[in-house]
């Protein structure tokens, strides 16, 4: 090895391996079929191990992604030769070729357009209707994002054993329904299904929620969701989702103060919001609104943009935001979370009967055991000057909160109110 071959570290972009794990898995799954997922995973793992032992010494090749794909191809060919199972590999139905040998099929899939197409097909397959949303996310992270089992467990706050079992079950379901799952996936003709956008939305939210303090690890989840959403671009609903994701991402740097502590919108230092991500948010919002189509993601993106465009919390245009939440509620009438958000937005407009509405919503089956509605009540009471009621609500919220970040946040609120109540000037 020449010593100067080591000056090309910069060619290893962040998460290059994860990115390529997804690409290789997608291409190989397309060629071998979803029922050969185990073999595909072995080939991908062997390819990375080859890179690991070689690149450590010889440095990064000029085109690392190309190198990996080439090695994966050779390993796939060897695997086929070894098992003499060439007849089992599916012929690409959308490309008519005189020579349908495996190597030719593989080479056809190596253009960036075809790789993207393979990734989309795999993404659609991971959103198989027989899998729960959580299992869809788990499988997507594993196959398309190159997340290992400990990384998924960490990102989704669950145990490794749970992830391992979920993956085994999900792959079995895909294996058994392999004929139907690829039929839906003519990616050039179909709009992304609702399920695909929903899991990207949830994947992002999962990362957003759990990034309260754990920093990099779960940030990754947000970036993976964005990366996958970009594969689907061209469709206005996806663009609206991307816009929403970028606006939310822009506030990351200001959300955390100390370990285990997050800051609410009114406490954040807005100068720390990431301008580049805000610009990205506007870029996708503009693209998303070029037709008359309005989806829930459009409305949520516009709401997020209103927060981002207010230079102080006091300047927030609550009237517009409340109006948009009412629109959202009309689209999603059965979602208690949308309703809750609408009530909170309206509570910044003095004349609204927010407390009565929160009392009514409190008994909703999906809200009554959680801390969220009690925390919201505490907040509205506090802002309207009912400190005793606020304290009671915050205490109820504290008893129900599980995450250390939520508990820390509520603890802070409780002690602030106690200070106001029991100091000489307090009421």
């Amino acid at each position: 090895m020449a010593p100067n071959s080591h000056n090309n570290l910069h060619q290893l972009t962040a998460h290059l391996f994860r990115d390529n794990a997804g690409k290789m898995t997608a291409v190989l799954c397309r060629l071998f079929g979803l029922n050969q997922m185990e073999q595909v995973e072995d080939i991908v793992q062997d390819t990375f191990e080859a890179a690991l032992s070689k690149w450590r010494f010889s440095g990064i090749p000029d085109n690392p992604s190309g190198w990996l794909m080439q090695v994966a191809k050779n390993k796939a060919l060897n695997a086929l030769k070894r098992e003499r199972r060439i007849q089992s590999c599916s012929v690409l139905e959308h490309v008519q070729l005189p020579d349908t040998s495996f190597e030719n099929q593989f080479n056809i899939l190596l253009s960036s357009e075809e790789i993207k197409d393979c990734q989309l097909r795999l993404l659609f397959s991971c959103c198989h209707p027989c899998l729960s949303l959580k299992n869809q996310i788990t499988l997507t992270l594993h196959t398309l994002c190159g997340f290992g089992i400990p990384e998924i467990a960490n990102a989704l706050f669950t145990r490794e054993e749970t992830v391992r079992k979920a993956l085994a079950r999900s792959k079995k379901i895909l294996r058994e329904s392999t004929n139907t799952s690829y039929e839906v996936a003519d990616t050039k003709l179909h709009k992304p299904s609702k399920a695909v956008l929903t899991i990207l939305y949830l994947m992002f939210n999962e990362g957003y929620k759990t990034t309260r303090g754990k920093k990099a690890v779960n940030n990754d989840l947000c970036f993976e969701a964005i990366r996958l959403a970009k594969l689907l671009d061209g469709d206005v609903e996806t663009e609206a989702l991307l816009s929403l994701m970028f606006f939310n991402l822009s506030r990351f740097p200001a959300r955390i103060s100390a370990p285990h502590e997050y800051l609410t919108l009114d406490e954040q230092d807005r100068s720390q919001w990431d301008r580049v991500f805000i610009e990205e948010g506007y870029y996708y919002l503009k693209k998303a609104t070029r037709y008359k189509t309005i989806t829930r993601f459009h409305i949520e993106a516009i709401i997020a943009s209103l927060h981002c465009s207010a230079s102080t919390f006091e300047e927030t245009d609550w009237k517009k935001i409340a109006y948009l939440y009412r629109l959202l509620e009309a689209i999603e009438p059965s979602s208690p979370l949308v309703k809750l958000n609408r009530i909170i937005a309206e509570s910044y407009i003095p004349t609204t009967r927010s407390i009565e509405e929160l009392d009514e919503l409190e008994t909703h089956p999906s809200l009554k055991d959680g801390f969220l509605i009690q925390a919201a009540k505490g907040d509205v009471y506090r802002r309207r000057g009912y400190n005793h009621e606020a304290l009671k609500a915050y205490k109820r919220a504290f008893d129900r909160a599980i995450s250390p970040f939520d508990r820390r946040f509520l603890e802070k609120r409780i002690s602030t109110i106690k200070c106001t109540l029991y100091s000489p000037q307090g009421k």
Partner: protein
Amino acid sequence: MKEFLLLIRENLDAYGKMTPEEMQQDIEKHMEWVEKLTANGNFKAGNPLDSTGKYIRDSVVTDGPYIEAKEVVSGFYFLLARSLEEAIEIAQGCPTLSAGGMVEVREIIEAE
């Protein structure tokens, strides 16, 4: 400057437990290490070795005396250092060590 051979011994099964992200980080650490050695003039050469090989004794060729051993020599470096002590100090920075591997340092004797 004297010349030293660093033999890297690793359990290759450990590779199978690494995630793509961990492997990328491992490569980055190795490259940073070699970059530093190169900048300090300690680096001469290095290469990986295939994990399988043949052993020859008398006229018999076998897969090796330690078929059961999971630990293999995965690669080598030639380093330049003033003394064995300095070579050891450099070798202690090898990222393989923190991943559970072993490094053997041997001075190369100039044959005149």
